């Protein structure tokens, strides 16, 4: 599995397409059997209790795309704080098991694990 991270609009999806994937390969629904999961952070923010179940499913994907959400001021709202931490922890776990981790900065892919 390749984990792709980066801030919002940093070029993550474009990078995935440069690897040969098309829109038809990309899904925001983790129950879907398409090879690329996009927007992991929105799934975690919708329900943080899904994380354990998610980890298993995500490791069977070819590509997982997630926004980095841990920077900036800690949110005042508890649910947002918890979701931010849950996303961070899940990404750390996925990165440990991923074959490759790529971070997008201004559209530039930086391989941080291979």
């Amino acid at each position, binding site marked *: 599995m390749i984990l792709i991270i980066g801030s919002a609009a940093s070029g993550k999806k474009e990078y995935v397409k440069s690897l040969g994937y098309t829109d038809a390969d990309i899904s925001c629904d983790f129950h879907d059997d398409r090879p690329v999961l996009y927007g992991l952070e929105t799934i975690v923010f919708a329900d943080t209790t899904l994380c354990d179940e998610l980890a298993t499913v995500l490791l069977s994907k070819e590509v997982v795309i997630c926004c980095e959400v841990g920077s900036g001021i800690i949110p005042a709202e508890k649910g947002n704080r918890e979701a931010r931490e849950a996303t*961070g922890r899940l990404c750390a776990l996925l990165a440990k098991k991923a074959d490759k981790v790529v971070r997008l900065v201004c559209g530039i892919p930086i391989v941080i694990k291979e």
Partner: protein
Amino acid sequence: MNILLTGGSACGKSTYAEKLISTLENEHRYYIATMRPYDDECIKKIERHRKQRESGRFITIEQPVSIGSLILPHRGTALLECMCNLCANEMFDESGNMRDPFDDIINGIEKLKAQCRHLIVVTNDVGGEYSAEYDSTTNAYIQTLGALNAHLASDFDCVYELVCSIPLVLKGELLI
């Protein structure tokens, strides 16, 4: 050797910092905790960090303010966690009054450094997101913590950013 560790929430800074200190220091490992246990969420976080450290033979020192007054029992290696809390604790009193804590914190870190073989400081890049909704107090905090981070980064030997538990070198060499 002085090392600054930065990175977003839950990116693996603490785990990495504890691994780092274990490779740098066998004898006197100090954990300088700056978080004030003012609600359940903080208490849970403190508890989680405490459990994480159980096998590491740390002496924990609670020091939410006044780092400069700290006297370590022996020369050793300290892990200060974290600059974000220390800055907020020094900057705002319980009634929310604000002051500029920059000089006190930097002087405090200098005094701590003088007592340490190695010092590891954990921080966060709170300026990493923009919001038009931040009030002037929040913006002042972002500015102060950013200035502290930049000062420490220029002074310290190594600066690493943790991303998904992977250390990226921003300055110096990667030790582990």
